[in-house]
Protein backbone atom coordinates (compact mmCIF):
# COMPACT_ATOMS: atom_id res chain seq x y z
CA UNK A 1 0.00 0.00 0.00
CA UNK A 2 3.02 2.24 0.19
CA UNK A 3 3.57 1.81 -3.48
CA UNK A 4 2.20 4.32 -5.87
CA UNK A 5 1.06 3.64 -9.37
CA UNK A 6 2.93 5.73 -11.90
CA UNK A 7 1.91 5.92 -15.51
CA UNK A 8 -0.04 3.08 -17.11
CA UNK A 9 0.13 0.27 -14.62
CA UNK A 10 3.81 0.66 -13.68
CA UNK A 11 4.63 0.47 -9.98
CA UNK A 12 7.78 2.11 -8.65
CA UNK A 13 9.17 0.22 -5.65
CA UNK A 14 10.12 2.43 -2.74
CA UNK A 15 13.80 1.47 -2.99
CA UNK A 16 13.86 2.68 -6.57
CA UNK A 17 12.11 5.87 -5.55
CA UNK A 18 14.76 6.39 -2.90
CA UNK A 19 17.51 6.20 -5.52
CA UNK A 20 15.61 8.63 -7.72
CA UNK A 21 15.35 11.18 -4.91
CA UNK A 22 19.02 10.80 -3.98
CA UNK A 23 19.92 11.76 -7.53
CA UNK A 24 17.94 15.00 -7.29
CA UNK A 25 20.38 16.74 -4.91
CA UNK A 26 24.03 16.43 -5.98
CA UNK A 27 25.96 17.75 -3.02
CA UNK A 28 29.65 18.13 -3.83
CA UNK A 29 30.08 21.47 -2.08
CA UNK A 30 33.67 20.67 -1.11
CA UNK A 31 34.68 20.59 -4.76
CA UNK A 32 32.57 23.64 -5.64
CA UNK A 33 29.49 21.86 -6.97
CA UNK A 34 25.92 21.73 -5.71
CA UNK A 35 23.08 20.87 -8.06
CA UNK A 36 19.35 20.66 -7.50
CA UNK A 37 17.33 18.88 -10.15
CA UNK A 38 14.70 21.07 -11.82
CA UNK A 39 12.18 18.28 -11.44
CA UNK A 40 11.83 18.78 -7.70
CA UNK A 41 10.02 22.01 -8.52
CA UNK A 42 7.56 20.48 -10.97
CA UNK A 43 7.15 16.76 -10.30
CA UNK A 44 3.94 15.62 -8.57
CA UNK A 45 5.52 12.46 -7.18
CA UNK A 46 8.27 14.49 -5.51
CA UNK A 47 5.58 16.82 -4.20
CA UNK A 48 3.79 13.92 -2.50
CA UNK A 49 7.04 12.82 -0.88
CA UNK A 50 7.69 16.37 0.34
CA UNK A 51 4.28 16.66 1.93
CA UNK A 52 4.53 13.30 3.62
CA UNK A 53 8.14 13.26 4.78
CA UNK A 54 9.19 16.92 4.95
CA UNK A 55 6.16 18.90 6.09
CA UNK A 56 4.55 16.01 7.93
CA UNK A 57 7.88 14.67 9.17
CA UNK A 58 9.32 17.57 11.15
CA UNK A 59 8.48 20.63 13.25
CA UNK A 60 6.35 23.28 11.50
CA UNK A 61 5.71 26.79 12.74
CA UNK A 62 1.97 27.12 13.52
CA UNK A 63 1.39 30.45 15.23
CA UNK A 64 2.18 32.83 18.07
CA UNK A 65 1.11 32.48 21.68
CA UNK A 66 0.05 36.13 21.47
CA UNK A 67 -2.52 35.21 18.78
CA UNK A 68 -4.49 33.30 21.42
CA UNK A 69 -3.94 35.30 24.63
CA UNK A 70 -7.22 34.42 26.40
CA UNK A 71 -8.79 31.18 27.64
CA UNK A 72 -10.65 29.39 24.81
CA UNK A 73 -9.01 31.47 22.03
CA UNK A 74 -8.13 29.56 18.88
CA UNK A 75 -6.66 29.93 15.41
CA UNK A 76 -6.82 27.39 12.60
CA UNK A 77 -3.88 26.42 10.39
CA UNK A 78 -2.40 23.58 8.37
CA UNK A 79 0.55 21.29 8.93
CA UNK A 80 1.35 19.81 5.56
CA UNK A 81 -1.98 18.68 4.18
CA UNK A 82 -3.62 18.41 7.61
CA UNK A 83 -5.97 21.09 8.93
CA UNK A 84 -5.36 21.80 12.64
CA UNK A 85 -6.77 23.98 15.43
CA UNK A 86 -4.37 25.72 17.76
CA UNK A 87 -6.49 26.10 20.87
CA UNK A 88 -5.95 27.59 24.31
CA UNK A 89 -8.13 25.70 26.77
CA UNK A 90 -10.24 27.12 29.57
CA UNK A 91 -7.33 26.84 32.02
CA UNK A 92 -4.87 28.54 29.68
CA UNK A 93 -2.99 25.52 28.35
CA UNK A 94 -2.33 25.38 24.59
CA UNK A 95 -3.25 22.34 22.49
CA UNK A 96 -3.14 21.50 18.83
CA UNK A 97 -5.83 19.21 17.43
CA UNK A 98 -6.54 17.88 13.98
CA UNK A 99 -9.41 20.05 12.79
CA UNK A 100 -11.78 17.21 12.02
CA UNK A 101 -14.78 15.75 13.85
CA UNK A 102 -14.28 12.27 15.28
CA UNK A 103 -17.77 11.28 14.16
CA UNK A 104 -17.93 11.77 10.40
CA UNK A 105 -14.82 13.78 9.70
CA UNK A 106 -16.27 17.19 8.89
CA UNK A 107 -13.93 20.09 9.51
CA UNK A 108 -14.83 21.06 13.06
CA UNK A 109 -13.99 24.74 12.90
CA UNK A 110 -14.05 26.44 9.49
CA UNK A 111 -13.17 29.90 10.89
CA UNK A 112 -9.71 31.47 10.92
CA UNK A 113 -9.78 32.52 14.55
CA UNK A 114 -12.10 33.10 17.47
CA UNK A 115 -12.98 32.14 21.00
CA UNK A 116 -14.92 28.96 21.79
CA UNK A 117 -15.30 27.02 25.01
CA UNK A 118 -17.09 24.31 23.06
CA UNK A 119 -16.81 23.49 19.35
CA UNK A 120 -20.01 21.96 18.00
CA UNK A 121 -19.73 20.08 14.73
CA UNK A 122 -22.33 21.50 12.37
CA UNK A 123 -23.04 18.11 10.80
CA UNK A 124 -24.48 15.98 13.67
CA UNK A 125 -23.70 18.31 16.60
CA UNK A 126 -20.98 16.27 18.28
CA UNK A 127 -19.34 18.70 20.72
CA UNK A 128 -15.80 19.12 22.05
CA UNK A 129 -14.56 21.40 24.81
CA UNK A 130 -11.47 23.56 24.40
CA UNK A 131 -9.34 20.81 25.97
CA UNK A 132 -10.42 18.48 23.18
CA UNK A 133 -12.76 16.25 25.22
CA UNK A 134 -15.85 15.01 23.49
CA UNK A 135 -18.54 16.47 25.76
CA UNK A 136 -21.69 15.65 23.83
CA UNK A 137 -22.83 13.00 21.38
CA UNK A 138 -26.21 14.20 20.21
CA UNK A 139 -29.12 11.80 20.92
CA UNK A 140 -26.66 9.27 22.33
CA UNK A 141 -29.32 7.54 24.48
CA UNK A 142 -31.48 6.73 21.47
CA UNK A 143 -28.59 5.82 19.23
CA UNK A 144 -28.55 2.11 20.14
CA UNK A 145 -24.80 2.28 20.57
CA UNK A 146 -23.13 -0.89 21.84
CA UNK A 147 -22.53 -1.01 25.60
CA UNK A 148 -18.83 -0.50 25.00
CA UNK A 149 -19.38 2.91 23.38
CA UNK A 150 -18.10 5.79 25.49
CA UNK A 151 -17.79 9.36 24.27
CA UNK A 152 -14.63 9.67 26.39
CA UNK A 153 -12.97 7.43 23.78
CA UNK A 154 -13.63 10.04 21.08
CA UNK A 155 -11.70 13.20 21.98
CA UNK A 156 -10.22 15.44 19.31
CA UNK A 157 -7.00 13.92 18.03
CA UNK A 158 -3.86 15.73 19.13
CA UNK A 159 -0.92 16.21 16.84
CA UNK A 160 2.15 14.27 18.01
CA UNK A 161 4.22 17.16 19.39
CA UNK A 162 3.61 20.75 20.37
CA UNK A 163 6.19 23.14 21.83
CA UNK A 164 6.75 26.84 22.07
CA UNK A 165 9.96 28.83 21.93
CA UNK A 166 9.76 32.48 23.08
CA UNK A 167 6.10 32.59 22.07
CA UNK A 168 6.64 30.97 18.64
CA UNK A 169 4.57 27.77 18.59
CA UNK A 170 5.68 24.76 16.56
CA UNK A 171 3.95 21.45 16.03
CA UNK A 172 4.92 18.13 14.53
CA UNK A 173 2.69 15.37 13.18
CA UNK A 174 5.37 12.83 14.04
CA UNK A 175 6.86 11.94 17.39
CA UNK A 176 10.24 11.35 15.85
CA UNK A 177 11.61 14.87 16.23
CA UNK A 178 14.15 16.27 18.68
CA UNK A 179 13.04 18.74 21.38
CA UNK A 180 12.17 22.05 19.69
CA UNK A 181 15.17 23.87 21.16
CA UNK A 182 17.54 21.26 19.69
CA UNK A 183 15.67 21.34 16.39
CA UNK A 184 16.05 25.13 16.12
CA UNK A 185 19.72 25.11 17.08
CA UNK A 186 21.38 28.44 16.26
CA UNK A 187 18.27 29.66 14.46
CA UNK A 188 16.73 30.22 17.90
CA UNK A 189 19.08 33.18 18.25
CA UNK A 190 17.21 35.00 15.51
CA UNK A 191 13.83 34.25 17.04
CA UNK A 192 15.29 35.85 20.18
CA UNK A 193 16.17 38.93 18.12
CA UNK A 194 12.48 39.27 17.23
CA UNK A 195 11.08 38.40 20.66
CA UNK A 196 13.55 40.73 22.42
CA UNK A 197 12.18 43.79 20.62
CA UNK A 198 9.53 44.34 23.29
CA UNK A 199 9.49 43.64 27.02
CA UNK A 200 6.36 41.54 26.49
CA UNK A 201 7.47 39.93 23.23
CA UNK A 202 5.86 40.34 19.83
CA UNK A 203 2.42 40.11 18.25
CA UNK A 204 0.83 40.23 14.82
CA UNK A 205 -0.59 43.58 13.79
CA UNK A 206 -4.29 42.76 13.22
CA UNK A 207 -5.02 41.70 9.65
CA UNK A 208 -3.49 38.76 7.80
CA UNK A 209 -2.49 39.11 4.16
CA UNK A 210 -2.95 35.79 2.34
CA UNK A 211 -2.18 35.11 -1.30
CA UNK A 212 -1.08 32.42 -3.69
CA UNK A 213 1.55 32.33 -6.39
CA UNK A 214 1.78 29.88 -9.27
CA UNK A 215 5.12 28.45 -8.32
CA UNK A 216 6.78 25.88 -6.10
CA UNK A 217 7.18 26.63 -2.38
CA UNK A 218 10.96 26.21 -2.58
CA UNK A 219 11.15 29.36 -4.71
CA UNK A 220 9.91 31.31 -1.69
CA UNK A 221 12.28 29.36 0.56
CA UNK A 222 15.26 30.31 -1.64
CA UNK A 223 14.26 33.90 -2.31
CA UNK A 224 13.94 34.66 1.39
CA UNK A 225 17.66 33.90 1.73
CA UNK A 226 18.72 35.44 -1.57
CA UNK A 227 20.47 38.79 -1.32
CA UNK A 228 21.71 38.48 -4.91
CA UNK A 229 18.31 39.15 -6.52
CA UNK A 230 17.69 42.47 -4.83
CA UNK A 231 19.42 44.85 -7.26
CA UNK A 232 17.80 43.32 -10.36
CA UNK A 233 14.37 42.18 -9.17
CA UNK A 234 13.77 45.28 -7.05
CA UNK A 235 15.30 47.81 -9.45
CA UNK A 236 11.97 49.63 -9.80
CA UNK A 237 11.66 49.84 -6.01
CA UNK A 238 15.13 51.36 -5.83
CA UNK A 239 14.07 53.93 -8.43
CA UNK A 240 11.09 54.88 -6.27
CA UNK A 241 13.40 55.23 -3.27
CA UNK A 242 15.74 57.49 -5.23
CA UNK A 243 12.77 59.58 -6.30
CA UNK A 244 11.64 59.90 -2.68
CA UNK A 245 15.05 61.07 -1.59
CA UNK A 246 15.26 63.56 -4.45
CA UNK A 247 11.82 65.00 -3.79
CA UNK A 248 12.29 64.99 -0.02
CA UNK A 249 9.28 62.78 0.68
CA UNK A 250 11.54 60.36 2.51
CA UNK A 251 14.00 61.22 5.25
CA UNK A 252 17.62 60.56 4.28
CA UNK A 253 18.87 57.08 5.16
CA UNK A 254 20.44 56.43 8.53
CA UNK A 255 22.92 54.00 9.89
CA UNK A 256 22.97 52.40 13.27
CA UNK A 257 26.49 51.03 12.83
CA UNK A 258 29.68 52.16 14.50
CA UNK A 259 32.41 53.76 12.37
CA UNK A 260 34.59 50.64 12.47
CA UNK A 261 32.00 48.29 11.00
CA UNK A 262 32.17 47.64 7.25
CA UNK A 263 29.22 47.35 4.90
CA UNK A 264 28.74 43.63 4.40
CA UNK A 265 26.38 40.75 3.86
CA UNK A 266 26.68 37.31 5.30
CA UNK A 267 24.86 34.10 6.02
CA UNK A 268 24.58 31.45 8.67
CA UNK A 269 23.43 27.87 8.19
CA UNK A 270 22.18 25.69 11.00
CA UNK A 271 21.09 22.14 11.75
CA UNK A 272 17.78 20.91 10.34
CA UNK A 273 17.76 23.19 7.32
CA UNK A 274 17.44 26.58 9.01
CA UNK A 275 19.48 29.48 7.69
CA UNK A 276 19.69 33.25 7.78
CA UNK A 277 21.21 36.12 5.87
CA UNK A 278 22.05 39.59 7.11
CA UNK A 279 23.08 42.91 5.65
CA UNK A 280 25.06 45.65 7.29
CA UNK A 281 24.47 48.95 5.50
CA UNK A 282 25.88 52.37 6.23
CA UNK A 283 24.85 55.98 5.86
CA UNK A 284 22.22 56.66 3.26
CA UNK A 285 21.40 53.01 2.69
CA UNK A 286 19.16 52.15 5.61
CA UNK A 287 15.53 53.12 6.14
CA UNK A 288 14.47 54.46 9.47
CA UNK A 289 13.73 51.37 11.51
CA UNK A 290 10.48 51.72 13.45
CA UNK A 291 12.14 50.18 16.50
CA UNK A 292 14.66 53.08 16.47
CA UNK A 293 12.07 55.87 16.24
CA UNK A 294 12.20 56.49 19.98
CA UNK A 295 15.67 56.46 21.66
CA UNK A 296 14.01 55.40 24.93
CA UNK A 297 12.91 52.16 23.26
CA UNK A 298 16.49 51.41 22.24
CA UNK A 299 17.69 52.16 25.78
CA UNK A 300 15.10 49.79 27.19
CA UNK A 301 16.19 47.01 24.83
CA UNK A 302 19.88 47.65 25.60
CA UNK A 303 19.23 47.42 29.35
CA UNK A 304 17.10 44.31 29.08
CA UNK A 305 18.77 42.33 26.28
CA UNK A 306 22.27 43.80 26.02
CA UNK A 307 24.26 45.88 23.55
CA UNK A 308 25.11 43.03 21.16
CA UNK A 309 21.48 41.98 20.94
CA UNK A 310 20.42 45.55 20.16
CA UNK A 311 23.11 45.88 17.50
CA UNK A 312 21.72 42.80 15.73
CA UNK A 313 18.12 43.91 16.13
CA UNK A 314 19.03 46.97 14.06
CA UNK A 315 20.62 44.94 11.26
CA UNK A 316 18.69 43.59 8.26
CA UNK A 317 17.98 39.94 8.91
CA UNK A 318 16.16 37.24 6.92
CA UNK A 319 15.64 34.00 8.79
CA UNK A 320 14.29 30.74 7.40
CA UNK A 321 13.02 28.17 9.87
CA UNK A 322 12.77 25.11 7.69
CA UNK A 323 10.44 23.99 6.23
CA UNK A 324 7.61 26.53 6.42
CA UNK A 325 8.49 29.88 8.00
CA UNK A 326 10.51 33.01 7.30
CA UNK A 327 11.02 36.01 9.51
CA UNK A 328 12.26 39.11 7.74
CA UNK A 329 13.31 42.25 9.60
CA UNK A 330 14.09 45.16 7.29
CA UNK A 331 12.08 48.43 7.24
CA UNK A 332 9.37 46.44 9.01
CA UNK A 333 9.20 42.92 10.39
CA UNK A 334 7.35 40.20 8.48
CA UNK A 335 6.51 36.68 9.53
CA UNK A 336 5.44 34.54 6.60
CA UNK A 337 4.42 30.92 6.36
CA UNK A 338 3.66 28.89 3.28
CA UNK A 339 1.53 25.90 2.47
CA UNK A 340 2.34 24.02 -0.73
CA UNK A 341 -0.89 23.32 -2.64
CA UNK A 342 0.68 21.55 -5.63
CA UNK A 343 4.11 21.53 -7.29
CA UNK A 344 3.12 24.73 -9.09
CA UNK A 345 0.99 26.53 -6.52
CA UNK A 346 1.77 27.85 -3.06
CA UNK A 347 -0.38 29.58 -0.47
CA UNK A 348 1.25 32.32 1.60
CA UNK A 349 0.04 33.69 4.94
CA UNK A 350 1.84 36.83 5.97
CA UNK A 351 1.78 39.09 8.99
CA UNK A 352 3.39 42.26 10.22
CA UNK A 353 5.19 41.36 13.44
CA UNK A 354 5.53 44.07 16.09
CA UNK A 355 6.54 44.52 19.73
CA UNK A 356 3.55 44.27 22.08
CA UNK A 357 2.77 47.65 23.63
CA UNK A 358 4.56 49.67 20.92
CA UNK A 359 3.73 53.42 20.81
CA UNK A 360 0.91 54.22 18.35
CA UNK A 361 3.06 56.49 16.12
CA UNK A 362 5.75 53.83 15.87
CA UNK A 363 3.14 51.20 15.10
CA UNK A 364 1.69 53.37 12.32
CA UNK A 365 5.17 53.90 10.79
CA UNK A 366 5.81 50.16 10.95
CA UNK A 367 2.53 49.42 9.17
CA UNK A 368 3.23 51.97 6.39
CA UNK A 369 6.78 50.62 5.89
CA UNK A 370 5.37 47.12 5.71
CA UNK A 371 2.69 47.94 3.15
CA UNK A 372 5.24 49.81 1.07
CA UNK A 373 7.40 46.75 0.40
CA UNK A 374 5.48 43.61 1.34
CA UNK A 375 2.05 42.37 0.20
CA UNK A 376 0.96 41.49 -3.36
CA UNK A 377 0.02 45.19 -3.51
CA UNK A 378 3.42 46.39 -2.28
CA UNK A 379 6.29 47.78 -4.36
CA UNK A 380 8.71 44.94 -3.59
CA UNK A 381 7.14 41.58 -2.79
CA UNK A 382 4.91 41.70 -5.88
CA UNK A 383 8.04 41.59 -8.06
CA UNK A 384 9.31 38.58 -6.09
CA UNK A 385 6.00 36.77 -6.49
CA UNK A 386 6.03 37.19 -10.25
CA UNK A 387 9.64 36.07 -10.43
CA UNK A 388 8.62 32.80 -8.74
CA UNK A 389 6.06 32.34 -11.49
CA UNK A 390 8.64 33.09 -14.18
CA UNK A 391 11.07 30.59 -12.63
CA UNK A 392 8.35 27.95 -12.40
CA UNK A 393 7.60 28.56 -16.09
CA UNK A 394 11.30 28.13 -16.90
CA UNK A 395 11.69 25.00 -14.79
CA UNK A 396 9.12 23.30 -17.00
CA UNK A 397 12.09 22.95 -19.37
CA UNK A 398 12.93 19.81 -17.41
CA UNK A 399 15.51 18.56 -19.89
CA UNK A 400 17.45 21.81 -19.98
CA UNK A 401 20.17 20.63 -17.65
CA UNK A 402 21.68 21.88 -14.42
CA UNK A 403 21.09 25.36 -13.10
CA UNK A 404 23.98 27.24 -11.51
CA UNK A 405 21.96 28.86 -8.74
CA UNK A 406 23.65 27.19 -5.78
CA UNK A 407 27.29 28.01 -6.43
CA UNK A 408 28.02 31.51 -5.13
CA UNK A 409 29.86 31.31 -1.84
CA UNK A 410 31.52 27.95 -2.52
CA UNK A 411 34.96 29.50 -2.95
CA UNK A 412 37.27 31.06 -0.40
CA UNK A 413 36.09 34.14 1.46
CA UNK A 414 38.38 36.99 2.53
CA UNK A 415 38.08 36.21 6.23
CA UNK A 416 39.30 33.13 8.06
CA UNK A 417 36.99 33.67 11.01
CA UNK A 418 33.39 34.77 11.41
CA UNK A 419 33.69 38.43 12.48
CA UNK A 420 30.48 38.21 14.51
CA UNK A 421 31.04 34.91 16.29
CA UNK A 422 31.55 36.64 19.63
CA UNK A 423 28.59 39.01 19.33
CA UNK A 424 26.14 36.33 18.31
CA UNK A 425 27.59 33.47 20.33
CA UNK A 426 25.36 30.87 18.71
CA UNK A 427 25.97 27.44 17.22
CA UNK A 428 26.24 27.48 13.43
CA UNK A 429 26.88 24.77 10.88
CA UNK A 430 28.45 27.22 8.44
CA UNK A 431 29.00 30.95 7.98
CA UNK A 432 29.78 33.13 4.97
CA UNK A 433 30.76 36.79 4.86
CA UNK A 434 31.37 39.14 1.97
CA UNK A 435 30.66 42.54 0.43
CA UNK A 436 27.17 43.83 -0.24
CA UNK A 437 27.43 42.39 -3.76
CA UNK A 438 28.38 38.91 -2.45
CA UNK A 439 24.97 37.22 -2.85
CA UNK A 440 25.81 33.92 -1.16
CA UNK A 441 23.87 30.95 -2.55
CA UNK A 442 25.44 28.25 -0.40
CA UNK A 443 22.97 29.43 2.25
CA UNK A 444 20.32 27.34 0.42
CA UNK A 445 22.27 24.11 0.91
CA UNK A 446 21.24 23.43 4.50
CA UNK A 447 17.57 23.38 3.50
CA UNK A 448 18.18 20.96 0.63
CA UNK A 449 20.31 18.70 2.83
CA UNK A 450 17.51 18.55 5.38
CA UNK A 451 14.95 18.06 2.60
CA UNK A 452 16.90 15.05 1.36
CA UNK A 453 17.53 13.70 4.87
CA UNK A 454 13.82 13.76 5.73
CA UNK A 455 12.69 12.16 2.48
CA UNK A 456 15.45 9.53 2.64
CA UNK A 457 14.55 8.74 6.23
CA UNK A 458 10.86 8.42 5.47
CA UNK A 459 11.29 6.35 2.33
CA UNK A 460 13.86 4.02 3.93
CA UNK A 461 11.58 3.33 6.85
CA UNK A 462 8.57 2.72 4.68
CA UNK A 463 10.62 0.48 2.38
CA UNK A 464 11.80 -1.57 5.36
CA UNK A 465 8.29 -1.86 6.73
CA UNK A 466 7.05 -2.99 3.36
CA UNK A 467 9.82 -5.58 3.03
CA UNK A 468 9.03 -6.92 6.50
CA UNK A 469 5.35 -7.13 5.59
CA UNK A 470 6.13 -9.08 2.43
CA UNK A 471 8.80 -11.33 3.96
Amino acid at each position, binding site marked *: MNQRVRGAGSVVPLREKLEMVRGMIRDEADSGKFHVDRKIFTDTEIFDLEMRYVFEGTWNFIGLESQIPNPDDYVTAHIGRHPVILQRDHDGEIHCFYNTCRHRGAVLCP*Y*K*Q*GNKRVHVCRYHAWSYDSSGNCVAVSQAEDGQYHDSFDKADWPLMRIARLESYRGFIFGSLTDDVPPLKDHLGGAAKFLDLAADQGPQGVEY*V*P*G*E*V*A*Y*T*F*DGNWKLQFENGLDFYHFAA*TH*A*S*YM*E*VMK*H*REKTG*TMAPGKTYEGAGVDEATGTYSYVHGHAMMYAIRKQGRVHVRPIAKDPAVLDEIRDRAGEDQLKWILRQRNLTVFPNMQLVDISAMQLRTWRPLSPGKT*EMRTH*CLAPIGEA*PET*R*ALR*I*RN*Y*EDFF*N*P*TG*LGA*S*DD*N*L*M*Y*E*YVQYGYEAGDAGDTSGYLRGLGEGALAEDPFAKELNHPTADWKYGPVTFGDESVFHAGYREWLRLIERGLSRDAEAEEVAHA
Partner: protein
Amino acid sequence: MLDQKPDALTADIRAARIAEQVLAMEGRFLDLQDWDAWLDLYAPDCTYWVPIWMDEDTATTDPQSQMSLIYHTSRTGLEERVLRIRTRKSVTAMPLPRTVHMVSNILVVSQSDTEIEGTAAWNVQHYDPRVGKRTSNCGHYEFTLANTAGGWKIARKKVILLDDMLPAVIDFYGL
Protein backbone atom coordinates in the same frame (compact mmCIF):
# COMPACT_ATOMS: atom_id res chain seq x y z
CA MET B 1 -33.97 58.23 -0.78
CA LEU B 2 -34.76 60.71 -3.49
CA ASP B 3 -36.47 63.86 -2.38
CA GLN B 4 -39.51 64.39 -4.66
CA LYS B 5 -39.37 68.22 -4.66
CA PRO B 6 -38.30 69.35 -8.16
CA ASP B 7 -35.25 71.40 -7.07
CA ALA B 8 -33.97 68.70 -4.76
CA LEU B 9 -34.55 66.06 -7.39
CA THR B 10 -32.54 68.07 -9.91
CA ALA B 11 -29.65 68.37 -7.45
CA ASP B 12 -29.74 64.62 -6.71
CA ILE B 13 -29.75 63.70 -10.37
CA ARG B 14 -26.92 66.11 -11.01
CA ALA B 15 -24.84 64.64 -8.18
CA ALA B 16 -25.50 61.08 -9.38
CA ARG B 17 -24.49 62.07 -12.90
CA ILE B 18 -21.25 63.67 -11.67
CA ALA B 19 -20.36 60.61 -9.61
CA GLU B 20 -21.11 58.28 -12.50
CA GLN B 21 -19.02 60.42 -14.84
CA VAL B 22 -15.97 60.63 -12.56
CA LEU B 23 -15.96 56.90 -11.79
CA ALA B 24 -16.45 55.96 -15.43
CA MET B 25 -13.63 58.30 -16.44
CA GLU B 26 -11.36 56.77 -13.83
CA GLY B 27 -12.03 53.27 -15.16
CA ARG B 28 -11.60 54.41 -18.72
CA PHE B 29 -8.24 56.11 -18.04
CA LEU B 30 -6.97 53.02 -16.21
CA ASP B 31 -8.08 50.78 -19.08
CA LEU B 32 -6.30 53.07 -21.56
CA GLN B 33 -3.23 53.17 -19.30
CA ASP B 34 -3.46 56.94 -19.48
CA TRP B 35 -1.82 57.33 -16.09
CA ASP B 36 -1.52 61.13 -16.18
CA ALA B 37 -5.21 61.58 -16.88
CA TRP B 38 -5.98 59.07 -14.13
CA LEU B 39 -3.77 60.87 -11.58
CA ASP B 40 -5.37 64.17 -12.55
CA LEU B 41 -8.73 62.86 -11.33
CA TYR B 42 -7.36 62.77 -7.78
CA ALA B 43 -7.03 65.73 -5.43
CA PRO B 44 -3.41 66.25 -4.26
CA ASP B 45 -4.43 65.58 -0.65
CA CYS B 46 -6.61 62.57 -1.47
CA THR B 47 -6.90 59.42 0.60
CA TYR B 48 -6.63 56.11 -1.27
CA TRP B 49 -7.31 53.14 0.95
CA VAL B 50 -7.60 49.41 0.31
CA PRO B 51 -8.32 47.70 3.66
CA ILE B 52 -8.06 43.93 4.17
CA TRP B 53 -10.28 41.42 5.89
CA MET B 54 -9.86 40.93 9.63
CA ASP B 55 -12.06 37.85 9.64
CA GLU B 56 -14.83 36.30 7.59
CA ASP B 57 -17.15 39.30 8.03
CA THR B 58 -15.14 42.41 8.90
CA ALA B 59 -12.67 44.55 6.99
CA THR B 60 -10.01 46.54 8.83
CA THR B 61 -11.29 49.93 9.99
CA ASP B 62 -8.22 51.72 11.38
CA PRO B 63 -5.19 51.99 9.09
CA GLN B 64 -3.03 53.34 11.95
CA SER B 65 -3.32 50.20 14.06
CA GLN B 66 -4.41 47.52 11.56
CA MET B 67 -3.03 46.30 8.25
CA SER B 68 -4.23 47.58 4.90
CA LEU B 69 -3.26 46.49 1.42
CA ILE B 70 -2.74 50.10 0.36
CA TYR B 71 -3.08 53.27 2.40
CA HIS B 72 -1.98 56.55 0.86
CA THR B 73 -2.88 59.91 2.39
CA SER B 74 -1.83 61.96 -0.62
CA ARG B 75 -1.64 61.57 -4.38
CA THR B 76 2.13 61.06 -4.01
CA GLY B 77 1.59 57.39 -3.19
CA LEU B 78 -0.35 56.92 -6.43
CA GLU B 79 2.25 58.90 -8.40
CA GLU B 80 4.98 56.60 -7.08
CA ARG B 81 3.05 53.56 -8.26
CA VAL B 82 2.86 55.09 -11.74
CA LEU B 83 6.55 55.99 -11.56
CA ARG B 84 7.38 52.36 -10.72
CA ILE B 85 5.56 51.16 -13.83
CA ARG B 86 7.27 53.80 -15.95
CA THR B 87 10.77 52.77 -14.86
CA ARG B 88 10.23 49.69 -17.06
CA LYS B 89 12.09 47.79 -14.35
CA SER B 90 9.21 46.12 -12.54
CA VAL B 91 8.34 42.63 -13.76
CA THR B 92 4.78 43.30 -12.63
CA ALA B 93 4.48 45.72 -15.54
CA MET B 94 6.41 43.82 -18.21
CA PRO B 95 3.87 43.24 -19.64
CA LEU B 96 0.99 45.02 -17.96
CA PRO B 97 -2.35 43.24 -17.95
CA ARG B 98 -5.15 44.55 -20.15
CA THR B 99 -8.14 45.62 -18.09
CA VAL B 100 -11.82 46.51 -18.36
CA HIS B 101 -13.23 48.47 -15.42
CA MET B 102 -16.97 48.35 -14.82
CA VAL B 103 -18.60 50.47 -12.15
CA SER B 104 -22.27 50.16 -11.28
CA ASN B 105 -24.87 50.52 -8.51
CA ILE B 106 -23.66 54.06 -7.91
CA LEU B 107 -25.49 55.57 -4.94
CA VAL B 108 -25.02 59.11 -3.75
CA VAL B 109 -25.15 59.17 0.04
CA SER B 110 -24.83 62.92 0.50
CA GLN B 111 -24.30 65.88 -1.77
CA SER B 112 -23.69 69.59 -1.68
CA ASP B 113 -22.23 72.16 -4.07
CA THR B 114 -18.74 71.30 -2.83
CA GLU B 115 -18.83 67.58 -2.05
CA ILE B 116 -20.47 64.36 -3.16
CA GLU B 117 -20.21 61.18 -1.13
CA GLY B 118 -21.32 57.79 -2.32
CA THR B 119 -20.83 54.10 -2.84
CA ALA B 120 -20.55 51.87 -5.90
CA ALA B 121 -19.90 48.30 -6.95
CA TRP B 122 -16.95 47.52 -9.23
CA ASN B 123 -15.64 44.73 -11.38
CA VAL B 124 -12.33 44.63 -13.21
CA GLN B 125 -11.70 42.05 -15.88
CA HIS B 126 -7.98 41.49 -15.96
CA TYR B 127 -6.25 39.71 -18.84
CA ASP B 128 -2.63 38.78 -18.31
CA PRO B 129 -0.89 38.23 -21.66
CA ARG B 130 2.09 36.79 -19.71
CA VAL B 131 0.17 33.62 -18.94
CA GLY B 132 -2.80 33.96 -21.31
CA LYS B 133 -5.29 34.04 -18.45
CA ARG B 134 -8.25 36.26 -17.66
CA THR B 135 -9.14 36.79 -14.04
CA SER B 136 -11.40 39.30 -12.36
CA ASN B 137 -11.40 41.36 -9.20
CA CYS B 138 -14.50 42.94 -7.73
CA GLY B 139 -15.76 44.72 -4.68
CA HIS B 140 -17.22 47.96 -3.38
CA TYR B 141 -16.09 51.55 -3.57
CA GLU B 142 -16.78 54.27 -1.07
CA PHE B 143 -15.89 57.68 -2.44
CA THR B 144 -15.89 61.40 -1.75
CA LEU B 145 -15.68 63.83 -4.65
CA ALA B 146 -14.65 67.45 -4.13
CA ASN B 147 -15.62 70.39 -6.36
CA THR B 148 -12.32 72.16 -7.06
CA ALA B 149 -11.15 74.92 -9.39
CA GLY B 150 -10.06 72.15 -11.75
CA GLY B 151 -13.42 70.36 -11.65
CA TRP B 152 -14.71 67.45 -9.59
CA LYS B 153 -11.83 65.39 -8.13
CA ILE B 154 -11.64 62.25 -6.06
CA ALA B 155 -10.85 63.36 -2.50
CA ARG B 156 -11.27 59.94 -0.88
CA LYS B 157 -11.55 56.46 -2.26
CA LYS B 158 -11.90 53.31 -0.24
CA VAL B 159 -11.68 50.11 -2.25
CA ILE B 160 -13.05 47.01 -0.58
CA LEU B 161 -11.81 43.96 -2.41
CA LEU B 162 -14.12 40.98 -2.08
CA ASP B 163 -11.36 38.38 -1.76
CA ASP B 164 -9.07 37.64 1.13
CA MET B 165 -7.02 35.07 -0.78
CA LEU B 166 -5.22 37.34 -3.21
CA PRO B 167 -3.37 36.72 -6.44
CA ALA B 168 0.43 37.08 -6.56
CA VAL B 169 0.19 40.69 -7.75
CA ILE B 170 -2.51 43.28 -7.47
CA ASP B 171 -2.12 47.01 -8.06
CA PHE B 172 -4.14 50.18 -8.63
CA TYR B 173 -4.91 49.35 -12.27
CA GLY B 174 -6.67 46.14 -11.19
CA LEU B 175 -8.82 47.75 -8.48
